[in-house]
């Protein structure tokens, strides 16, 4: 059985402007030890899905209105708040984008690192400190003794993100959710942090959901990829299928719109036309339709279901078999 199984998840925000269907029927699984990427642009629902798994959707205005989330044999949506609290930070670790906001500025690194171990694992302070030292060594920080006494503002952005990774690993989680873990960091530091996360998750056998908008990061680190658009997964599959045989016009358009360092420079980029849709005003048809080059009349009648096209590769598009010409442009 999969470690995490999300089925038909629906999370909505009830705002004065109308109901925002931020996550609208998302299903995916994460197997033990694998790295799954969720790619999409702002407002595609990738972060809200992650927050729903952690049950951290603020009410009001947000609410999980349907679906199920099974983690390690438990239905997370059926748990009490106390039970959920014992899973958060213990079985599921989290890494957020901005390390300064996920660390407490007035507590030392040592206190923040040991707190979850004392609370969740019942460790003594001394034992927790010992383990904290080991964790800091694992995430590549020099002089762990001195670091434990320091405050977050003493550290650079990259170092802070290392501390956050150490915290996520502190209670030997089964799953880590990393929401844009390197977006705030410079490229060279990003490479360091991603390499570290990859090595640690493989060594320790931890599964990871990495949420990002960066297609390069996904190509380097993910086993499987889910592409989201306007609250739904529109394509999923193993990374090489998504990049070499995209079967959804949006994935195709995304791949075509980024300038690539490994290709000859092109005279012009080929952008996705138009704007992302207003999530309060979605109609029955495919939400990518207004920006899609392959759209036909029947795309307006209903939202295409996510269909398996072999090898675990799925696509939600009526025209998925008619993209060949443009796919060749991307794959070369």
């Amino acid at each position: 059985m999969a470690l995490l199984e999300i089925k038909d998840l629906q999370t909505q925000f009830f705002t004065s402007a109308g109901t925002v269907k931020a996550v609208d029927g998302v299903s995916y699984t994460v197997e033990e030890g694998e790295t799954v990427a969720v790619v999409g642009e702002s407002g595609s629902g990738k972060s809200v899905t992650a927050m729903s798994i952690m049950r951290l959707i603020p009410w009001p205005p947000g609410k999980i209105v349907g679906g199920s989330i099974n983690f390690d044999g438990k239905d997370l949506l059926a748990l009490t708040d106390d039970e959920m609290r014992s899973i958060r930070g213990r079985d599921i670790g989290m890494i957020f984008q901005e390390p300064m906001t996920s660390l407490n500025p007035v507590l030392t690194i040592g206190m923040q690192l040991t707190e979850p171990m004392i609370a969740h694992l019942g460790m003594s302070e001394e034992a927790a400190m010992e383990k904290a030292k080991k964790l800091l060594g694992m995430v590549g920080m020099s002089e762990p003794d001195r670091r434990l006494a320091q405050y977050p503002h003493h550290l650079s952005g990259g170092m802070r993100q290392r501390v956050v990774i150490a915290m996520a690993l502190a209670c030997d989680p089964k799953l880590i959710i990393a929401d844009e873990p390197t977006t705030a960091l410079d490229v060279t530091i990003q490479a360091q942090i991603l390499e570290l996360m990859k090595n640690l998750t493989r060594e320790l056998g931890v599964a990871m959901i990495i949420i990002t908008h960066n297609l390069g990061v996904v190509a380097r680190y993910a086993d499987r990829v889910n592409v989201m658009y306007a609250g739904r997964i529109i394509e999923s599959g193993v990374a090489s299928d998504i990049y070499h045989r995209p079967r959804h016009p949006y994935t195709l358009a995304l791949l075509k719109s980024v300038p690539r360092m490994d290709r000859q420079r092109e005279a012009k980029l080929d952008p996705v036309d138009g704007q992302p849709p207003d999530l309060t005003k979605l109609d029955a048809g495919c939400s990518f339709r207004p920006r899609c080059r392959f759209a036909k009349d029947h795309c307006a009648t209903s939202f295409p279901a996510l269909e398996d096209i072999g090898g675990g590769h799925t696509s939600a598009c009526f025209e998925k078999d008619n993209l060949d010409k443009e796919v060749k442009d991307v794959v070369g």
Partner: protein
Amino acid sequence: MSDAVNQKRSSRTGSSEGFDEVLVDVRDLKMYFPVTEGVFIPRVVAHVKAVDGVSFQVFRGETLGVVGESGCGKTTTGRCILQLEKPTSGEIIFYGDDITKYDSKQMIDVRKKIQVIFQDPYSSLNPRMKVGEILMEPMKVHNIIPDEVERQKRAKYLLNVCGLASAFADRYPHEMSGGQRQRVGIARALAMDPEFIICDEAVSALDVSIQAQVINLLEDLRDEFDLTYLFISHDLSVVRHISHRVAVMYLGNLVELADGDELFENPMHPYTNLLLNAVPIPDPDIEKTRAHEIIKGEIPSPINPPPGCVFHPRCPMAVDNCKKEIPQLREVKPGHWVACSEV
């Protein structure tokens, strides 16, 4: 301001792509910010050497990309050219005159010709002004179009040029998406009919699908209005796409400068090499075969930069001499400049 001085391409940091009129000449620019201690009687205890002796030229019609990580001085360099910072030393020659010596009155004329597009379209547009007013204000301040109706016409024209309907003139910034706001930021920069635009991370805050639209717009405008760009960004693939030449900065220094294609195909400075290596390529099969050589350590503090070559503590090629001798930018191949003694 003196008349256009058609400086011919000098031997220093020159181009090879056929742009030969120097528009902006930055000479040995230094910008040190004082670090003070004490609340009532502040005294200077150190300096942040944000830009530490940078020289380059920008040719009319070209796009010069400036890349580097946070704190490398790329933004400060741009702000110095705009005279938003008074440089500690060095010269910025624009139309034959050193504009660092100009007073604020003299700068008014320069500001019409040099405009800026900022990263964050949320904070660089006044939330209380309608888009039309935002675009008309500079025309009014500089008195280029005294007539209100003409100004309105031009504001709408600028919106159309930047791919927005005229109706956007009556909207407020908060009613627009990030991509649309950035188009307004670009339209505002164009309002003055500038010659030179500094794009400081102009597309970095935008989503991938919108980013490509704005990059294409910037390129179209460059051709249509004969603009020259200084394109500052941390995103190497975007810089490669848009730039004719690219300068790489590290810790306040220019470490490499070359034609775009040359720099990305044949990087010579060890830092440039490692920087390019760190950029992931959106293709899992290529990524599997790439050696992921990673730069060790972090960027040192610009308050107390390392002696000798500033990159030596992290450099895989460093030898003893690098700790002592400051490498000068030298032309290794025609148009390819590198500041490394081991190249």
